[in-house]
Each structure stands twice: as structure tokens, then as C-alpha cells.
């Protein structure tokens, strides 16, 4: 019986955070639905449409770039032992501890005009803060694969590269994809670094801040709701696709 009380207590404590996450989302969506007209009007605002497009394109590009560079890095970290490996591992986690405004300043100091106010700048800011998700998830995915599978494939005649593409990568794919989705999600929620590096072209998350600063809460609300709904939808869709692959594998 005692264990039941413990479980109930833990569930109660845990649900506070759950409610805390859900409440604002439901409230903002609910409030906006009462003012449906404004929502429709915002959706017709070209500035809003353009910024949404910018946000989604740059996050998707960021995700793809993180895959191209992050998967090989994850593989090396999972399979090879070398001096300074723990340092490399530490470096990958650095973006998590640096305030994002500082990230923006650092990028500008490093690349200055080359990235200022450009799509490249947005993507670079996003990549800096979100790539660790792909790297770490691919590393974990590779680590979870029994190396003997790779050894056997080698003895059956596959080169190292062939083994990677026919055995290792397909098996690590669910993990890699879930990492990539987190990268995408982190990228589209990035504001701090983008604000400093590339105020223009306008992304939706920066536009929300713009509207709030210039016109107040009520005006920034509809675009916030649109951003929430679209992000959640795509996030859920990607997880569903990845989950389906997972089941198949």
C-alpha cells in the first residue's frame, strides 16, 4: 500500500510541471480563438507569411547541415578512442552553457559582415546552438549498435564504408532522426543569437518580439499562436514519421 502513496505523491509533484507547460499554451490558443478575426487577418499579413517562411526554411536547412556534419562526428565519438576525446565531447556541449546573445556576439566578432543580416547568418546562429542535439543523438545511436554486427559484415565482404551505409546507418537512423528533430525544434525556437546576427531577413520568432516591443501583447499574440500551432504540428509530424521508421526497424 505504501508504494501506492509514494507513486501518487510523485505523480502529483510531477504533474505541476506538466500543467505549467500546458497551461500557457492552452490559454494563449484559447484566448486567440475568441478573437478569431484577428487570427485570420494576421494570416493574411504578408510580413507574417514571409517571416514564417524564413523561419521554417532556415530551421530545415540547419537540420540538414547538422546531419551532414554531425553524423560523422557522432560516429567517430562512438567508435574511436583518441587522446582528447573527452575534450571534444565537452566542446560539443559548450553551446548549451553560453547565453545565446553571447553566441550572436561571438559569431559577429568572428565572421562580421559576411553573415550580418543574411539567411546565412540566421542559419549559422541556429546551427551553433542546435547542432549538439544531432551530434549527441547520433553518437548514442551508434553506441547502441553491437559492434559485432559491423565485424561480421566486414568478414562477409563489405568495406568499412559499405558497412556504415548498409548496417550502421540504418540501425542508428531512429536515434539520428530524433536528434535531427530536436535540432530543428531548437533552431526554430532560437531568438537571442539571431537577433544580434541577423535582425533581417525577418524570422517569425523575431517578428513576435518586434510586434511586442512596438505594439504590445495583443498584437504579438496572434502570430505567436500561429507559430505555436505550426511548430507543434511539424514537430509532431516528424516524430510520427521517425516513430514509424522505428517500429519498422
Amino acid at each position, binding site marked *: 500500500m505504501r508504494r501506492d502513496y509514494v507513486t501518487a505523491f510523485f505523480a502529483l509533484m510531477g504533474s505541476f510541471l506538466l500543467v505549467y507547460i500546458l497551461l500557457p499554451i492552452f490559454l494563449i490558443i484559447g484566448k486567440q480563438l475568441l478573437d478569431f478575426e484577428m487570427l485570420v487577418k494576421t494570416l493574411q499579413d504578408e510580413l507574417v507569411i514571409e517571416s514564417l517562411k524564413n523561419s521554417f526554411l532556415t530551421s530545415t536547412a540547419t537540420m540538414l547541415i547538422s546531419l551532414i556534419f554531425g553524423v560523422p562526428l557522432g560516429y567517430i565519438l562512438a567508435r574511436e578512442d583518441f587522446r582528447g576525446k573527452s575534450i571534444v565531447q565537452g566542446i560539443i556541449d559548450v553551446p548549451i552553457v553560453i547565453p545565446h546573445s553571447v553566441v550572436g556576439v561571438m559569431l559577429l566578432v568572428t565572421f562580421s559582415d559576411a553573415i550580418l543580416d543574411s539567411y546565412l547568418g540566421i542559419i549559422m546562429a541556429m546551427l551553433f546552438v542546435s547542432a549538439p542535439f544531432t551530434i549527441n543523438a547520433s553518437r548514442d545511436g551508434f553506441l547502441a549498435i553491437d559492434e*559485432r*554486427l559491423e565485424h*561480421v559484415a*566486414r568478414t562477409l*565482404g563489405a568495406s568499412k564504408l559499405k558497412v556504415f551505409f548498409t548496417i550502421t546507418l540504418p540501425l542508428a537512423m531512429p536515434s539520428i532522426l530524433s536528434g535531427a528533430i530536436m535540432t530543428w525544434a531548437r533552431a526554430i525556437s532560437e531568438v537571442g543569437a539571431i537577433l544580434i546576427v541577423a535582425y533581417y531577413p525577418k524570422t517569425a520568432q523575431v517578428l513576435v518580439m518586434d510586434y511586442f516591443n512596438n505594439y504590445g501583447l495583443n498584437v504579438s499574440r496572434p502570430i505567436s499562436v500561429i507559430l505555436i500551432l505550426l511548430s507543434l504540428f511539424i514537430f509532431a509530424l516528424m516524430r510520427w514519421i521517425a516513430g514509424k521508421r522505428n517500429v519498422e526497424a
Partner: protein
Amino acid sequence: MLRLERVSRRWKDFEINNVSFEVIKGEYFIILGPSGAGKTLLLETIAGIFKPEEGDIWLEEERITDLPPEKREISYIPQNYALFPHLTVYENIAYGMRLRKFSEEEIKREVYELAEVLGIGGLLHREPKTLSGGEQQRVAIARAIAIKPKILLLDEPFSNLDIQMASKLIGEMKRWKKELEFTAIHVTHSFEEALSLGDRVGVMMKGELKQIGAIREVFSTPKSEDVARFLGYENIIEGEARGRTFYVNGIKLELPKEAKGRIRIGLRPEDIILSKKVLESSARNVLKMRVTAIEDLGSVVKVEVESSGIELRAIITRSSLLELGISEGDEIYAVFKSSAIHIF
């Protein structure tokens, strides 16, 4: 056919040290040794997963020491079979053939033929995780054989199976090796596998091959004390031999043949009979001893007896123990034939 020359390699806590042996074409070679002896490391070095730090490996007169695994034409079946979980049984078996660019038709014919011999014809569309241990093993063998390797390496292939399944598959393995005509190195710690499958055996301990020879020969005449101990001669006594008599601490034993000087003799625990009275039997060696310990090993019981500083371990059935009605401290006669004694 496959020849190792003084091969040494260290990896983590394991090592193989100065290992030399040769496997003849068509032979089923057993490497027998306790766990931790370096058996898996030896197989993986032969397969090319590890490079030897010293020594050379030759396959059909070609030096393959530096060849990567994919260039060796040596198939390797690890202990857990390592079936590719994302591929069907059919695709698992076809994997090596696809890399060799066989036509779809040839692949299909070969896969079906192997599946027929190995009795897995009904499983080809299944996924590995839905298979039992025995089925997985058959698939692993099919996948390894499909590339027609020059030699097949098997790492403890029966250790993940329950006893009944293992002995059934050991029987089938005999048939497969005839039908499929492969050369194999089979690593195991099981005497049963060695005795029922092996043509020759190498006993491996602490990274070294201690003795190589025909199975019966190695089991009947172990060359050194540690091999003998591993092969089940738990009782090893050191003493003085004069002719066919062996002297130790004032006790006399009859030897199976003449010997001279300081020697060691070995005796298997199951060759010792325990009796309350002096038995009238052909066994020439009868020692009056005292029971010092009785250990329950499940279906059998190990009894330790002692006299004049000599300790012997005997294995008897549970029912004999009940019949004898002995307990620690009791006096008893240990009886064994001189032919059960092995001289080192």
C-alpha cells in the same frame, strides 16, 4: 591451409601469446579452453578484426596478416550470432552474395538451397528478433556459408542454447559439415562439443595453445599439468616412482606402466569409487581415507577425502551417497584402477 605463426595480440584484459597452429582443408578444428583464455580474441585476429602485434597468418599460402577482413574470405560467427536486425532472414543470408554482385537468381537459388539443408526454409521472410536461439544459429551459419568462405570461424556456437537444443544442433552440425563441406575452427569450453565434433583440438589457456593433437589423444594423454587439470584430472599427486609402484607419504599405488623418479599422476574424480568396506575387485589401488567435505553439485556429489597429506576428490551419484550414508569425518575406502591413473 590456415597457418598461424607465433601470433601475439593483446586487447583489453585479453591476450594471445605466441600462438602457432595449422588447420587442414576440410578439417573441424576445436579450440578448447576456459573462459578468459583469449579464444574469441584469437578468432577475431584470424578474421582480421584485430591485427596481430607479432607473427603472421597464412591462408592457402597467401600471407593475410595485413589484409582487412573483407579481403580474407573467412566467415565469422560470433557467440551471439550477430544477425542484422533490420534485415529479413533472406536478406541476412544474401548479404555477402549481394556484395559480390551475384545475380538475383543465383542469390535466390543459393539462399533456398542453404535454407533447405539447414531447415530454415520457412523462416526466410521473418525478422531475426522473432527467431529462437536455435533458429538464429542456423541463419548465422547459412549467412556465413553463403559466401563460400575458405574457412568458417565459430565462437561458442552452442553456448546460448538450452542443453537439449544444443545437443540436437551438435548432432546436426555433424551432418552439415559433411553436406556443406566446410573447414572450420570452433571455439568452445565444452568437452562434449570437442569430443563429438572435433577432428583435432588445441587446448588454449591464458592466451597460449598448450597442446594440439587428435581429440582422443589430447584427452587421454594431456602433456602438462594445467591441461590435465582443465581436462578434468582434478586429482594430481606428486611422488616418487619406482617401476610400477608410486610412493607418496608412505602410501603405495600401482601405476599403469613403469616409471622412474619424481613424477606427477592424475586421476579423474569420476574414476574413484568410494566404499565402506574393502572391495573385492580388479581395482588394485585401495586407500583408507577420511571424508573432509561433501559438496552438492546437483545430480552428483563431490566428496573430498584425505589421508597422510593426500587429498582426493571423488564424484559419486546422489544415490550412492545415500547408500553409503557417509558424512564428514567418516572413514572410507577410495578405490581406483591403476589404468585410471595418468602419468605426466
